[in-house]
């Protein structure tokens, strides 16, 4: 039931909503002081997931609109900037097998119903972000993004990628990809053990796609 009080609430609520919308869309890192960071020093960014040469196995669940795909995600760094990323079902059959070579994704194998250009390029965005393989024009550091974080921003013509490190433990805990001012993908990395995140959540903000990873090896 709508009464006058609720209409008044609505009246004050609408501008608040507009303000929220305005700030919600603006880039929170835009006005923060940036310091140029030499691309040659990229290996100094303490992002262990991208650096590890171990075979990483994550129990994975992907929710894509109404579909759910689950299985084991295997990530293997095969060379300096080369990775293999494969998803298998519980029974072992491969769902996809990608080679990420210097920032370009090649499909080694993909099950027919997922082998669509739009979906493959979405996976490409995700894994490039997750493994810090995006091409960029410059890198800069951002101070005091939030009290506990130090951030590195990668800037390309259309996109910005932010890797946020918790200053207390020097671990990357958040990753954000922005297209101009809109948040496109965000990643949270939790519960580091042996210097690798035990749990990762990746979420798209413009499409209904969520991925959950739990480390088993």
């Amino acid at each position, binding site marked *: 039931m709508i009464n006058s009080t609720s209409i008044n609430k609505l009246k004050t609520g609408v501008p608040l909503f507009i303000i929220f919308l305005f700030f919600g869309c603006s880039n929170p890192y835009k006005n923060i002081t940036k310091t140029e960071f030499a691309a040659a020093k990229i290996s100094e960014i303490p992002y262990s997931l991208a650096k590890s040469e171990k*075979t990483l*196995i994550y*129990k994975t*669940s992907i929710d894509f609109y109404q579909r*759910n795909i*689950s299985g*084991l995600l*295997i990530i*293997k760094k*095969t060379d300096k900037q080369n990775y*293999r990323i*494969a998803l*298998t*079902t*519980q*029974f*072992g*059959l*491969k769902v996809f*097998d990608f080679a990420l070579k210097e920032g370009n994704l090649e499909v*080694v*194998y993909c*099950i*027919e119903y997922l082998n669509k250009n739009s979906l493959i390029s979405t996976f490409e965005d995700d894994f490039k972000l997750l493994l810090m393989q995006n091409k960029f024009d410059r890198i800069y550091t951002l101070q005091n993004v939030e009290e506990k974080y130090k951030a590195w921003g990668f800037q390309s013509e259309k996109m910005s990628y932010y890797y946020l490190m918790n200053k207390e433990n020097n671990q990357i805990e958040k990753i954000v990809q922005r297209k101009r001012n809109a948040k496109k993908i965000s990643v949270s990395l939790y519960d580091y053990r042996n210097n690798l995140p035990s749990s990762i959540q990746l979420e798209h903000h413009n499409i209904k796609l969520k991925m959950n990873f739990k480390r*088993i*090896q």
Partner: protein
Amino acid sequence: MNKIIVTLLCFFFFSGVIKAQEENFAKVSDIKKAKTNLAQLTQKISTIKSQFIQEKHLSFLTENIISKGEFYFKNPGFLRWEYTEPFEYLIVLTDKNIFIKDEKNISSFDTESNKMFSEINNIMTGTIQGNIFNDNERFTVEYFENNQQYLLKLVPKMPKMKSMLQSIHIFIDKSDLSVARIKMTESSDDYTSITFIDRKLNTTIDHDKFDIHK
């Protein structure tokens, strides 16, 4: 250092054994007799309870990915795959439905909507029941044997399945005519091998095992 050498030796030794195992098989000369023997699979086996070890081989990895668990089969087409390592995961297949319990979440599909699962279901039940060997429409079957085992090499005929699987090798122990190992090779030579150990045939299996809610 010693540990590495031992691991390497084990790797070469066992991979050698596996290779030799497959190479020792000769084409079955009397296919009729083999078929008659295998037909007993259908007639004699009403239940199977077994441990299983699943090995996933990916060409870009030096080590295989190992999963373990318990397997239950009950005629006509009830299967329970209970993974216990590296994490708990339960799959129950009945003639019409597939149920999955992952942590506390239970999901179900009908076999029609999930073709891949239904194919695996068909392969498993078809192998155990023996009718997959006569499925000339979907597979070409070649028969091999050594002293201990029959080896059936199945090659899918249907294009969709062919794009997923290059071949299915089924190893059947002659002693009890039950499936000892299934090796599914994908189009890229990556494979999944499931070895059934400590197999118990025709013991009583409570039907609750095929009710995921219990």
